[in-house]
């Protein structure tokens, strides 16, 4: 028994060392860096200076505001996913094939999806060419911040709704079919069953999808922003994660970028806790 305990531990150890060394330690290190002024070679302790600087930095304010603008994508994605999942749940002919199609954007890199949208809205891209069929002059979409934000949101919705409709579908399939049958026997129509049975039964999954969408808009827009707009015009489409990247590799104080990363990390941790809390509450009732 002791022998096998040693073997078991040795089997976990390589993974643990790698994860501790290249994920857990870097997070602690980021926390330390955020209290210093550093160029990566020398570290000068500055206490909370970097954080105070963030609070008064107008660019940081704008970037946080941008992130909130991107939250518009959340209800759009969820609504599209919900409609698709409810329709897929009817299990018409070939619905399994549709499942694979809907999953398709999910296997593509953000670089690929981003560039598809950048191309489509480019000066000689498909959208301008299409508008030209109606005699419209080609537009420079990316010099206008409203269009730029809209295009990134569109990319988010396009690439996200399929996967999330499959998550919701998994929730729907978990509902006991007897409940539907009983309701049908009682004479409840399709819409009635949708409101009183289907939606309430998957509210947990909807909650889960809601949270992952919010986390995604705060921590994973880097790829889209980098490829589609590079943060421009100005800082109008720069998100927090993209600003971390900009600060990290273009300024001489990595501490400032690290402080921003820590703030982002705390925010995401808070959201995750909130998610766990919400799910626990729902388990109880």
């Amino acid at each position: 028994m002791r022998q096998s305990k040693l073997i078991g531990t040795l089997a976990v150890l390589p993974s643990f060392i790698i994860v501790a060394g290249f994920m857990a330690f870097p997070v602690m290190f980021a926390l330390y860096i955020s209290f210093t002024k550093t160029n990566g070679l020398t570290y000068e302790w500055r206490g909370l200076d970097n954080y105070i600087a963030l609070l008064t930095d107008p660019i940081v304010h704008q970037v946080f505001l941008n992130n909130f603008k991107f939250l518009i994508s959340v209800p759009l994605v969820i609504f599209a996913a919900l409609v698709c999942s409810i329709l897929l749940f009817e299990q018409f002919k070939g619905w399994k094939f549709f499942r694979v199609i809907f999953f398709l954007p999910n296997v593509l890199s953000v670089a690929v999806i981003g560039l598809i949208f950048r191309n489509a809205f480019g000066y000689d891209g498909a959208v301008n060419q299409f508008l030209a069929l109606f005699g419209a002059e080609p537009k420079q979409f990316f010099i206008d911040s409203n269009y730029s934000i809209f295009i990134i949101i569109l990319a988010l919705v396009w690439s996200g709704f399929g996967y999330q409709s499959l998550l919701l579908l998994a929730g729907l399939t978990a509902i006991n079919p007897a409940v539907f049958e009983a309701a049908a026997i009682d004479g409840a129509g399709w819409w009635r069953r949708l409101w009183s049975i289907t939606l309430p039964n998957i509210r947990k999954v909807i909650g889960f999808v809601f949270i992952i969408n919010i986390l995604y808009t705060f921590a994973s827009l880097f790829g889209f922003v980098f490829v589609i707009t590079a943060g421009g015009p100005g800082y109008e489409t720069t998100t927090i994660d993209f600003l971390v990247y900009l600060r990290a590799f273009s300024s001489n104080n990595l501490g400032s970028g690290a402080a921003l990363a820590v703030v982002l990390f705390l925010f995401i941790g808070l959201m995750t806790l909130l998610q766990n809390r919400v799910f626990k509450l729902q388990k109880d009732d």
Partner: protein
Amino acid sequence: MSDSISSRLNPRAKWPIFIGMCLVAATIIYPLFFVVATSLRSNVDYKRDPFGLPSEWTIDNYLKLWNEYGVGRAFMNSLFVSLTSVTLILVFATLAGYALAKLPVFASKYFTATFVSVMLLPGPVLIIPIYLVLARLGIVGDYAGLILVYVATGLPFAIFFLTLTFRAIPDELLEAARVDGAGFYRTLWSIVRPMGGSGIATLAVLQFLGTWNELIFALILIPNAKMKLLTPTLSSIGKRFLTDQPLTSAGLFITAMVPLLLLAFASKYIMRGLQVGLSR
């Protein structure tokens, strides 16, 4: 089952749903079709009639990208880095997953807690400290550093996934192997590997997609142009050739081709991974 389905909705209502779903599917398929069609024509031909089919089909864009703009090299680099990372992840995660699922482990709670707590760590938090750590180790710009990062970021989910998979293996089977005198590696190879085979395959596909598609770390950890991976190469081509959509489309298709092939041939495994993604 067919009974409960017909009780949900009038069968006549299924046709409109089917057509609606076809339209939704078209919003996914058409952009990809457009990319492929555009990539197979010259820029002049594209500008003449962007929505029609090419008047003359050509693979010039692919040849130009592959041979002159370093896409061929980047493709091979990405393949090398992805395959190496996935192999390492599978080896380490199988060992750890098996131990956590079936063997007594010292302080196993703390190991599991470490893996779970870093699982949802967002990439942006890591870029500065990882860059500095790798710089200190002298492996920035080296595939070793990038592969280490991919293995470290992939492992937590991989271990979680395989622990769940291996838990389903009946204890009697492992016990029988032990009575027969099979040691740790022998049990792992002849029982755990085949019994958890489809789980391991699912994980391999998911992790491959993850590393093949990754952008941030590939971008910042490999500055050398000759060693660049495919996703950063693609995004710089997209920025350089704004006015040559057929050329960038070819780059898009080259990058998307590998994941699409995987989806076509391993959709069973990918769909299975999806369910576990939910339980996370």
